């Protein structure tokens, strides 16, 4: 194992946080305007990040939806997510419009904490307390399965089995797989949320929009 920093990032790359689509400063906006193909309209057409005017995003709604479906089916097909995730989506309604993203964000937050704890426990030279590790693992497993993260849950099962046998090496390797799976899932879910946010925007586009 190469040297481990204290707070090793769990993911190799961190997806950028979702940004608002409107340009960050007026200068950039002006620049954009110069090259705005729609400038002939004589109005300041706000452009989405994608370079399309916002109102055109509405046209892309179908494409966005297709993207989202494709991503979801990929995730389900690969066994990364299971029907529990669908149930989560069903819980989202008018009374809790951002339910899924809220829950998933909490999950990310908690999971990173738990994974860090697990790693620090395992890396400890005098590690012997499998019970304590088991508690963290149990919680991680519970939340992962509640989210519908099937693959992660399965890895947790393997982890638990290794822990029951007091197999430290097995636990370590399981932890590595776990971290990898977690990163992967996190990125995919971020991607999913980005698409969804864009869909929301596309649905809420009004023309003309004035900044």
């Amino acid at each position: 194992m190469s040297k481990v920093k204290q707070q090793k990032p769990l993911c190799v790359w961190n997806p950028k946080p979702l940004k608002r689509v409107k340009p960050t400063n007026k200068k950039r906006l002006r620049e954009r305007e110069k090259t705005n193909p729609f400038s002939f309209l004589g109005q300041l057409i706000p452009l989405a990040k994608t370079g399309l005017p916002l109102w055109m995003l509405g046209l892309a709604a179908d494409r966005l939806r297709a993207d989202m479906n494709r991503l979801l089916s990929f995730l389900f097909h690969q066994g990364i997510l299971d029907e529990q995730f669908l149930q989560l989506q069903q819980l989202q309604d008018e009374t809790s419009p951002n339910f899924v993203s809220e829950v998933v964000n909490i999950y990310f937050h908690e999971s990173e904490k738990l994974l860090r704890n697990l790693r620090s426990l395992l890396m400890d030279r005098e590690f012997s307390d499998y019970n304590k590790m088991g508690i963290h693992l149990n919680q991680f497993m519970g939340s992962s399965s509640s989210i519908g993260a099937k693959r992660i849950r399965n890895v947790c099962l393997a982890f638990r089995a290794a822990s029951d046998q007091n197999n430290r090496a097995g636990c370590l390797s399981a932890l590595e797989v776990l971290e990898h799976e977690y990163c992967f899932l996190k990125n995919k879910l971020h991607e999913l949320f980005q698409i969804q946010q864009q869909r929301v925007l596309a649905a809420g586009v009004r023309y003309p929009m004035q900044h």
Partner: protein
Amino acid sequence: MEEKMGGSNGEDSGEDQFPVGMRVLAVDDDPICLKILANLLCKCQYQVTTTNQAIIALKMLRENKNRYDLVISDVNMPDMDGFKLLELVGLEMDLPVIMLSAHSDTKLVMKGITHGACDYLLKPVRIEELKNIWQHVVRRKKPDSKDELAAPNHDKARGGTGEAGQTWVACSSDQKVNKKRKDQSEDEEEETEDNGRENEDSSCQKKPRVVWSVDLHRKFVAAVNQLGLGDQAVPKKILDLMNVEGLTRENVASHLQKYRLYLRRLSSVATQQANMVVALGSRGPSHLRTGSLDGFGDFRSFTGPGRFSSASLPSYQSRGTFGRLNSSAALTLSGISSGVIQPGNSVNGLRKIQPVVFPANQNQNGVLFQGITASIELNQLSQTKSTNHFGEYNCVDERNVFRISSSFPDARVVVGSSSNSLSTASGNALVLQGNTQQVQCSAAFENLPSFGMTSLNRESNDLSVRGSSNCLEHGRCSENWQGTVQLSNFPPSNEQLPSNNLQESIPWRNSSPSNGCIALSSMASSAFLGDSRADMLCKAGLNNSYSHVDSRVSASGSMMDQSNAVSSNTNDVSLFSHLNGEAPFAVWLSEGDKSSFDTDLRSNDNFLFLQSKPQNGFSQNNFESLEDIMSPVFKLEQNNETAFMDGGFGFDVAYPLGSCM
């Protein structure tokens, strides 16, 4: 932190549209699961309150006991163990608690059951499962509100219902009952086929069924005796004599019919019993012989002092060994007229003893059995089987309760045992033996384990009486009860003890091999009390504690006499407190004798108590004693008339199973 969702709670506004609006308290330290759970529950239209700390949850529960209908709690929590919370909630508030965990380990599920959980769900929680959790509330409520019968369903054994092996009887009956309760109109007072499996307060006019409690039955019998069993005993006159309000002529008529059947049955076994009695050298064989009221009367007088057990007990006590049990059993038989004490399987695998003992006993008891009826034989059979089971049991600490009943055609003996062994986490094995001719008992027993287990696992050696009560509750047991007299320490909240049903013998499996399991429950003592306890099979493990057992038996016997309602909780507690950790002792103590009893109980022995139901013949004799014994039981659960009659009345072979149901 806590949140409230779904509107205010604290009122029964949703009562009529139950389960909508049911107030649930969700406890989980994992915020994700908590959030998801809360939303799922809201989707099911419950009113949800959440908290991530068990301490806060307890505080909220204590503030107002009626604020919540149901508690869902995670197993692994940092501030307090989920099982501890479960116990506390069950003890203090008697709310149904559902456990939740990502870990589906059998041991954990068992632990949940024994601690009293209604159900054990696995994460991820699905909405389909949550849609049905209201049944636990109804199950608990029903007895409280209607019958004072806590009918913990086998379901309670959560997650593990499978483990408890809920029998159809328990479950279906319970559910049917539930349904029935809901559908029945309030003023229905008609008697159901069997005098109701449910126990109902006969004085409560709203109840559709009449429950023939011990007292009621006593009055009935007194009235019948007074009139003479011949032509004079007509329902109308009996009704007048009894002078109980809320009782209709129809109730009395059907009860009389059953009673007559019971008597007829008694007389058929009378000779055999007589033989046995002779063999046993017991006294009062007369009661055995007479199937008539006279016999009964004798019996009564015989057992008048109710200290049948005491008579037999001394002899018992003198015997230190199990082997003596047989003889003492004989004595008891005479006294009890059907107490058969069988050596329980000790942890050491006394299993073999059982069969051995059995034959030994058979001379004495055998007659009884044979005489009594097929049921008796069955009982024996069952007992043997159960003993065998016990054998298995012994080894395993956390063995699940096995259902013996299923093996018996008549479901005579239902042994429900909680698998917790004493040695481990004070697991108590409940061995319920309901030798009932009816299968129902078995069913009931089965439930028992689940239920019983919960209470059994109290830290202080509680015996999960509850479990037994659950089983018993299943009402039918009472019918089936015939043979089974159960002594169980049911915590008061558990009411379930169907009086008739059973005396549960709680087998204790001690980890220490030295201790045998002595199934000695108050039942045994009660058996002693009852002449016709012949059916009672007490399995007493041979072990040092035998003497203890003796003392216990006597104590219990005396207690039984008391026919005090058993406030199971207090009794149990006191009882258990005296017990050394290991020996959970399921004893039904009447309050009065608690102290005496307590002193007796100091043993680490495991008691396996198998009690066969007294056969009809015996039951007759046991009438009196049974009543005594049962009274506490009755209190917990109103027995059906039949149940009470264990005296054998209700459990005539002729008694159709169906009727019990």
